[in-house]
């Protein structure tokens, strides 16, 4: 679309004031016309100028005064906390009173802003121009308490049953107490029969678990590659001018070293930078990462959101806070170490357009770039390949609720807001949100595009990370079984059972496995007959079948998992799955203990430990240190 006359005039002014050169204007004009964005958005996606000078010129273009909101902050009395969301999205806020008129600071002067301002603050208004970074920063600081409070408590206040703030509901506590009492009474009155019943129930659960996962594998593995190719072609064919604005949230905590690689990975995305609304979300106390971000000299599309200190200090809280400032039609969360495939956002847009209207989220595949670092990273890769390449597509095809993975979940922003976003009290807020989406009648789909992450390469780190995940699954299980009928209504009976087996099964297997290993190992070594009454012949057969077929089936599932990617070198490692399960069980018991002692404690996974940086894997282009020399430029986004 040709540049508007106003933008053409602005371009002339910028060149005239030597903010940019003529060739830069030509390039920016071409970009703006191709992307169908304003000239300013195209210019800010390039590191050609100081953002302040751009906005000063912009103000002059409209013959409005320019204000520096850091030097002259807005009057807090004028900024209504209820308006914070809209102000952030429209980059407009009431600044100060001037002669009985409200001076409105905006980064986007124009008719729409005028209408919005009149609607909110009446006709006695006048406008000043401020940079978008100043406006975002001013809203953060002025409404910090309100926004922080909403980030923590919105879900609890609006939909308390969906929040993990309360670990178990009173009914769940009573039910647990009744079951425990029944078990103890049974053990006292008829111990053998009680143990047999318990054993039979566990056997049925094990059997159901591996049959269910086998079905998922089969269904997910048969996913049509033709459909994926079609999406890939449609993604490439999408015209740049019809792509929507995409918000990218990158919550980080003490990960300064990951910033350059992350920035480069985001630049590598095959998506017009002018249509990216990138928010690097940092904790107020994490001075090192804040300084590193400011020092990087990032382009104007990168914004820094500082989350005020409050508890719980979790990633979902940070995302909730940043969501207030999101301007995109779609929104994705990436972790600091993530390296998404370049065409991911395009594929997501293409898939959303093909999906049913009630699709709220699309989950991309996750995998690791440090696969070959050691045994643990190989097993972790098999685990992820099974989960994201086979199981989740299986859940999708069977129309079951999908627990989202930690990153690369792409949301429709309006639905995300409607659902009150992430639960800051749940330590696997992503999995919980995926189930909540199903619970509320929406749908999660999957996309054949991979984001590469760094696998925990040390057992201690891995156990900590997995403990958090399993604790989160337990929280999610407890939250969504509070109102089982509502879940059945939202997901259907099959979906409900799928949820129980998929989430509950993963946790319970980790907890039960060591008990049965001990019994089996003890019997093998001692040939003791003490437990024979608990294992009558037919039950012994079922247990043996579960032991043999279950182990074989899971090994086989792990063996098949890497085939889709052609990572055949991992096939033999699937034979060592038992060792991985030992770690899983340790993590499961640690998670159970933490759920009792510190249910909302977020155990941070440390990244950057790998000796295999992403740049060496061949999956991506440049990463660390390759930032176009951006550090030499003054970055508007991080000037504060």
């Amino acid at each position, binding site marked *: 679309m040709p540049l508007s006359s106003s933008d053409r005039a602005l371009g002339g002014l910028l060149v005239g004031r030597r903010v940019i050169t003529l060739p830069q204007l030509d390039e920016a004009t071409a970009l703006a016309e191709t992307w169908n964005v304003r000239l300013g958005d195209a210019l800010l996606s390039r590191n050609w100028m100081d953002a302040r000078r751009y906005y000063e010129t912009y103000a002059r273009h409209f013959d409005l005064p320019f204000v520096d909101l850091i030097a002259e902050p807005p009057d807090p009395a004028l900024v209504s906390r209820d308006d914070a969301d809209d102000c952030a999205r429209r980059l407009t806020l009431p600044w100060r009173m001037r002669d009985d008129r409200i001076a409105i600071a905006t980064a986007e002067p124009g008719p729409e802003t005028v209408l919005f301002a009149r609607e909110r603050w009446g006709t006695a208004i006048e406008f000043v121009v401020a940079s978008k970074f100043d406006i975002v920063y001013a809203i953060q600081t002025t409404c910090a308490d309100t926004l922080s409070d909403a980030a923590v408590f919105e879900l609890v206040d609006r939909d308390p049953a969906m929040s993990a703030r309360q670990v178990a509901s009173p009914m769940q506590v009573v039910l647990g107490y009744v079951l425990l009492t029944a078990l103890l009474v049974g053990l006292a009155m008829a111990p053998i029969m009680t143990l047999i019943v318990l054993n039979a129930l566990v056997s049925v659960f094990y059997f159901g678990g591996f049959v269910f996962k086998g079905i998922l*594998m*089969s*269904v*997910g*593995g*048969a*996913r049509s*590659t033709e459909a994926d190719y079609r999406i890939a072609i449609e993604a490439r064919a999408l015209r740049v001018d019809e792509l929507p604005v995409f918000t990218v949230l990158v919550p980080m905590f003490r990960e300064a070293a990951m910033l350059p690689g992350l920035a480069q990975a985001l630049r590598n995305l095959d998506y017009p930078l002018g249509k990216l609304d990138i928010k690097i979300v940092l904790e107020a106390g994490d001075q090192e990462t804040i300084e590193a971000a400011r020092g990087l000299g990032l382009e104007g599309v990168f914004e820094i959101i500082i989350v005020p200190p409050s508890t719980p200090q979790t990633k979902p809280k940070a995302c909730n806070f940043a969501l207030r400032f999101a301007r995109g039609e779609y929104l994705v969360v990436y972790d600091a170490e993530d390296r998404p495939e370049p065409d991911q956002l395009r594929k997501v847009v293409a898939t959303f357009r093909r999906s049913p209207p009630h699709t709220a989220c699309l989950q991309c595949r996750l995998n690791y770039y440090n696969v070959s670092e050691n045994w643990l990273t190989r097993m972790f890769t098999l685990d992820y390949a099974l989960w994201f*390449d*086979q199981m989740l597509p299986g859940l999708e095809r069977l129309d079951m609720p999908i627990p989202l993975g930690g990153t690369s979940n792409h949301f429709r922003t309006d639905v995300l807001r409607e659902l009150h976003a992430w639960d800051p009290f749940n330590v696997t807020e992503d999995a919980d949100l995926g189930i909540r989406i199903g619970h509320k009648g929406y749908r999660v789909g999957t996309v054949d595009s991979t984001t590469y992450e760094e696998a925990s390469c040390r057992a201690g780190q891995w156990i900590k990370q997995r403990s958090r995940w399993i604790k989160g699954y337990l929280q999610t299980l407890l939250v969504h079984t509070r109102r089982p009928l509502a879940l059945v209504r939202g997901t259907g009976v099959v979906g409900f059972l799928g949820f129980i087996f998929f989430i509950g099964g993963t946790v319970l297997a980790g907890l039960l496995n060591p008990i049965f290993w001990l019994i089996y190992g003890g019997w093998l070594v001692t040939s003791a007959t003490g437990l024979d009454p608990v294992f009558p*012949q*037919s039950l*012994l*057969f079922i247990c*043996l079948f579960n032991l*043999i*077929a279950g182990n*074989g089936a899971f*090994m*086989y599932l792990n*063996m*098949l*998992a890497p*085939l*889709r990617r*052609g990572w*055949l*070198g991992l*096939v*033999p490692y699937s034979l060592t799955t038992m060792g991985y399960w030992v770690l899983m069980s340790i993590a499961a018991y640690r998670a159970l203990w933490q759920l009792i002692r510190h249910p909302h404690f977020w155990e941070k996974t440390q990244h950057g430990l790998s000796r295999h940086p992403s740049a060496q894997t061949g999956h991506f282009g440049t990463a660390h240190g390759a930032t176009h020399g951006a550090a030499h430029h003054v970055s508007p986004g991080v000037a504060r």
Partner: protein
Amino acid sequence: MTRTFTAAPFVLLAFATALVLAAVTVRTGFVSDDAMRLWAASITAGEGNIAVGRIVAAYPTFPFWASALTALIAPAGTPAPALVAAIMFALIAGIWFVSLRAAGFVRVSTVLAAALLVFHPVLLRAEIDGPSEMFLAAFLFMFGVALFDLRRRGATADVMTVGLALLGLAFSHPMGAAIALAAVPFLALAVRPVLVANSAFNVVVALVFPTVFAVGAFVYSSWVFPGAGWSFFAAPAESLATWRASVAHIFGEGLTGIAAFDASLATIVALMFGAPVVYVALRWVARRRPLVVPALVFSAAVVTAAALTIATGLFGEPTAIAVAAPVLAAVVMVRVPDLAARPAAALALLVAGWIGGLATLPLVDPGAAGHLRAAIAGGESDRTDALAAGGAAVGHDGVLADTDNAPALVLGRGSARGIYGPASEPFHLALIFSRLDTPFVAVPDPQSPIGVSDRLNKAFPSLYRRGAIGYRLIYHNDTWRLYSRIPNVASKKDY
């Protein structure tokens, strides 16, 4: 859904045909030894007269489990293996019908092609032979189709299907186990070249893992449940000896004198004549490797399996391999699109295959001709006599008999309850102490083929002729005698 529905009449026809065949063959005794043994064992297991261990480690596993389960839930006297075989036959008919429609054949062509494939003489012979061969045919079809999909698409689900098909083959029939083993060297050829280039060995590992693991599990179960033993190795050795005798009777020294080589040649001829559509279709698509290679891998596995069976003696007689011809024809019909484009030629080739199958049947199953002649002549006396003796034992509880050797006895009686077979304690005690103490004893003529291997005859050589002290003869026919203990007379050593 519509396709499945339109297949219903055809499935019912196949099911009815199978039941009629079962009734005729049981009445005339034209039932294979394996089917008889399975039948008797399933009745016994269904009545709970077999230890869990023997059920767990029974072989061939899938047909046995299916038959035992049917015997358990069906009314008493239901011929469980025949019913399972008929169900499997109908299932195969339905799958082939639906697959042919999905492959693009119009309804008339589908009906004709499905009829020529399902009622192929070799498949009918397999149906008569019992559920083992029906399971073998079903898993062979699964294997063949999955090979095509694996080469064309190479999705994880295709690898999984090939792996599970090999597992199914190995536990359906000894011949299936031979095919699964013989297929291993050829599997790498069936995979997409890009995967093979990556790591051929690991691809093959992924394909054969289910089978290898299941065999290990099977052996382990045999160890955990005492009494299960390794009986599945013994039976094939006996049937191979019978097959060799039949071959010698018809073909003398054979073509080359090397039995394994001859078996391979016979299999090749059976495939070529029984399924000419395969090799003509491959000629049409000779330049399209993804369509040619899977069919060649399938053929190579089957031919090698025939040789392997004879060379090792581990997998019994190779007659069941005959079923590969109509199965491969069905696979090619549903996976080579050119055939749907030339239905007339395809049907003509299927007709030729039907005739060729009939003509080559004696080549792969030399014993069948003899059995058929005997059946037409009024039944095989060994079988019919055993069935009659079983009938005579109805109403008598505590019949000592070697039912492993003469499973028809159980069939004739309709129930294993009240029979002291080789797995029972009275049978063990009788053999250990050479002392008869049961209310009844059934024994075949030691001069008859069935009597030679009867364990009671071996322990009590004069039992058939002279009876035992304290026992009187209450029934006899040409082969069998049934003795009853005389009340109040203490039994002693037989001699």
